[in-house]
């Protein structure tokens, strides 16, 4: 499965990219995070405390248990601070 993965705010800065294509067979968001952590220290650092990370799957807020079957876009970001 090929996913577009997006990073915002300090997650973007720590990982050093705003967007990348990821080939994965991860079944859930948590599986995808585990895969990314294994890749390089910058991912492990960015995802070191998942309580500080929010996730959207196909532009809808989701949690770590959310399935990725059929998903096209996953975004990681800190809690929102608009308004």
């Amino acid at each position, binding site marked *: 499965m090929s996913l577009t993965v997006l990073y915002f705010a300090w997650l973007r800065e720590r990982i050093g990219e705003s967007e990348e294509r990821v080939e994965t067979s991860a079944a859930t968001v948590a599986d995808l995070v585990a895969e990314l952590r294994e890749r390089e220290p910058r991912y492990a650092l960015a995802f070191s405390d998942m309580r500080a990370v929010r996730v*959207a799957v196909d532009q*809808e807020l989701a949690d770590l248990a959310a399935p990725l079957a059929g998903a096209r876009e996953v975004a990681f*970001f*800190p*809690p929102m601070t*608009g*308004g």
Partner: protein
Amino acid sequence: MSVRVQAEDFDLGAELAALRAGRTDIGALVSFTGLVRDVTAGAGAISALELEHYPAMTLRALGAIEAEAAARWPLRASLIIHRHGLLHPGDQIMMVATASESRAAAFAAAEFLMDYLKSRAPFWKKETRPDGAHWVAARDEDEAALAAWDR
């Protein structure tokens, strides 16, 4: 009902005038405007504020928040405008406006929109201060304000 995300500034007075133009069924019009302050408590002077957002998700999230408000209160009209990009102290960040027959509905819907937007619309603020640029942390009280609407 209308949602806009833009880098440009907006004219608060013109937006509020347009919302009620030609209408005689609005008894109460409430607006909220968020502005860049030059100081954050305990963190010193702010010289700039960078607003990052997630374009593909932003309009969808704001539209869903506005639809939820319209389902909860009898709104005659509503508007959300949120800016992104580089702002400076005194600049307008965003606005919401709600129009209803009654003041209670207009006030409640405006506060609801703000509480949801604060914690559910994909915007992130980065402040430039004397000690560098810092991402603004989400506040527990914002999540608490949101949770209160489900009680």
